[in-house]
């Protein structure tokens, strides 16, 4: 029993990372007022790009992850052009992006023969001598680089949003683009930057999934994590640290599934696999019960901005 708990907690962080990074990336974009439903697709792009770079350029995991970030950012330019410049309905554009990425990654993965090839990927980085401590050593100091970097990334993004001029401007665009426009800010520029920058993080989340966790690319491997990240952002009320808490929760659920089987508990396999999705629904219901009093949703979320609108 003791071992199972430790095993569970030790696996938790690396399963939480994709949720954490993806929702953080979404938060950046949504704080500028752009509703992004494309996370599921961008994660797939990052996952494929990571494996592709790993297999094509000599097997450097960090290079692969950077490639994943770049791929996520590049594909998101398409989305940004559609919703910021051409003012396409953000729900439709987000959905189209997901299905486009699903199809495209499936196609490219098969044609370029990157599918179903295991890689050694990203290795753990034990922090000697701390990693030698009993229990704690395994839980906190024996993880890979990205897990260690996650909290600094969160700190950096949080600082950026709340304690810099640029972050202030970004948030103002998400709250009241008319006020931001009247203050002389370039709405298009900030929204583009927020979407593309945020998507780089989403791509990284996907890349970590393939290069760090599963160490393989399989078509559709994100299995809805992107949608869960979208729900997480709402649950986190657009605050980075709450998103991290949510990510830990979902990482915990995902880490629990193999442990339950190991503990000898006999639950039908497929019902166990349903738990993350049902948990997400439960979280959303709970949000709904608590109501939206004091809602922190960026006021202008989801609405394209155009200056010369006359009623």
């Amino acid at each position: 029993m003791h071992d199972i708990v430790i095993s569970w907690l030790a696996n938790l962080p690396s399963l939480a990372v994709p949720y954490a990074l993806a929702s953080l990336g979404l938060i950046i974009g949504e704080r500028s007022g752009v509703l992004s439903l494309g996370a599921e697709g961008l994660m797939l792009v990052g996952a494929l790009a990571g494996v592709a770079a790993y297999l094509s350029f000599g097997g450097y995991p960090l290079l692969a992850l950077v490639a994943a970030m770049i791929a996520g950012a590049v594909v998101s330019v398409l989305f940004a052009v559609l919703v910021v410049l051409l003012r396409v309905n953000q729900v439709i554009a987000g959905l189209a992006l997901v299905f486009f990425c699903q199809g495209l990654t499936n196609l490219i993965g098969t044609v370029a023969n990157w599918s179903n090839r295991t890689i050694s990927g990203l290795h753990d980085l034990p922090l000697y001598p701390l990693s030698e401590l009993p229990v704690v050593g395994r839980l906190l100091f024996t993880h890979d680089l990205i897990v260690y970097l996650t909290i600094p990334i969160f700190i950096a993004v949080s600082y950026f949003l709340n304690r810099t001029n640029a972050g202030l401007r970004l948030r103002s665009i998400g709250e009241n683009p008319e006020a931001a426009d009247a203050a002389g800010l370039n709405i298009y520029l900030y929204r583009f930057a927020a979407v593309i920058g945020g998507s780089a993080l989403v791509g990284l989340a996907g890349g970590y999934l393939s290069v760090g966790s599963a160490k393989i690319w399989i078509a559709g491997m994100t299995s809805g994590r992107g949608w869960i990240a979208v729900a997480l952002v709402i649950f986190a009320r657009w605050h980075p640290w709450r998103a991290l808490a949510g990510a830990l929760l979902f990482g915990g659920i995902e880490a629990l599934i193999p442990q339950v089987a190991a503990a000898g508990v006999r639950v039908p396999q497929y019902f166990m696999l349903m738990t993350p999705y049902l948990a997400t629904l439960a979280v959303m219901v709970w949000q709904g019960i608590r109501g939206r009093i004091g809602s922190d949703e960026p006021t202008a979320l989801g609405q394209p901005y155009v200056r010369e609108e006359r009623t």
Partner: protein
Amino acid sequence: MAPALELSGITKFFGDFLALDAAHLSVDYGEVHALLGENGAGKSSLMNVAAGLYSPDSGSIKVAGAPCRFSGPRESMQRGIGMIHQNFKLVKRFTIAENVLLANPRGSFRAGKAAIEREIREKAAALGFNLEPARRIDRLSIAEQQRVEIIKALVAGAGILILDEPTAVLTEGEAQRLLAMVRDIAQAGAAVILVTHKLRDVKAFAHRVTIMRGGKTVTTLDPARATADDLTTLMVGSNVVTPSRSTKSVGENRLTVTALASATVEGLTPLVDATFSVRSGEIYGIAGVGGNGQTELADALVGGRQPSAGTIAIKEPGSPTLAEITTATPRQRRDHGIASVPADRQSFGLATSLSIVDNFAVGFIHDGRFGTAARIDRGSMRRATEAAVREFEVQGVRSLWQRAGLLSGGNAQKLILAREFSRVPSIIVAHSPTRGLDVRACAAVHGRLVAARDAGAAVVLISEDLDEVLGISDRIGVMTRGRIVAEFDAPADRHAVGRAMVDHV
């Protein structure tokens, strides 16, 4: 010295609509220059051109004698033009300092915030009031928010200040204080443009006034040398007859509202305790500055939101008993004979993407008037709409099947009245029914309300325009901070009503 701002020959189209027709304006430093005109005359559009928000199709702009071209608000701000809009361009969740900092960066974030806070305090003190820079905008009153907008412009170094209908949202006392402050700012050397339709303010505070009508500039003159009637004629172009109050007899109580309360919506004063009743054959006007619970009251009356306490009871003609409708749905209220004329026409009065026929027919289709549940009868819908459009004089209808959104403000309102009043309602709730309409359309709407009243309806008129309320109401209730604090019978003393609006602050 060259004029501070000179706009010449400005023309602006919005699609087919000509908003500005070779308009011109010249304002000097050190003066308060009023821009006078009725709704739709083009005043706000012209100022939006000066502020860089609209780009003119033709014409020129000169600031301090130097020609300029603005491709955005930033350039206009850099030339020293600061505009305070009717709907404030403030981020509600940010503090005063953050809002001012947004357009006026001062180095790094932390240092900048401290510097800005100092500047805000200095400038506010120089004008004679206090502003605590760390307060959030959504915790400030409307008058305070307006002062933030002015400070924002001054911190940015504005030499030309444009105020768009600034007194529309203020009590009489707050308005006087604002206009006095504005005069001081002009005296210190700035050029101040006051966009307004209020003659009293123009005569009391402006050095010069330019009058606009139908997108054109009519003339510029010294308001001290013109009478109010002269100014009105220049604004409107001809005489318009307003309906007179009749001395019809008043019937029984139709609507009784008792201790009605409603929860907060985003910082607006909630409805705290509204108690009043309205009889058949009378117009009960609710006067008050916007933001004192009027919207919540209107919503509670028509069923748009549930009140948190209190009751609404009605007595239908011919029915011996009172019916309590506090929690009734809008559908049920309509069945009881209540008609609603909402303040926000485009959002709540019409479905702008649907046809005129649809927008009219939806008011009746539930009663089985246009076919059955299995099959609607478009032919009878069209005929009924045609008759209603004729009777209520809705203009601009090229085809009954055109989108309702193509109708102008006044005609859209007439269509809404056609739908609501054709049912001969026994109770009418009209919220700011003439907002944004020109004088002719206003008169038409008032005529309809009076006619409905004469036919026996009990009319609740909620309006932020004191002139409107005083003009057609038979009884007046004053609403402040969510309560009806005073009631007057017509004809009411304007000053007494105005005092009631502030005494309970």
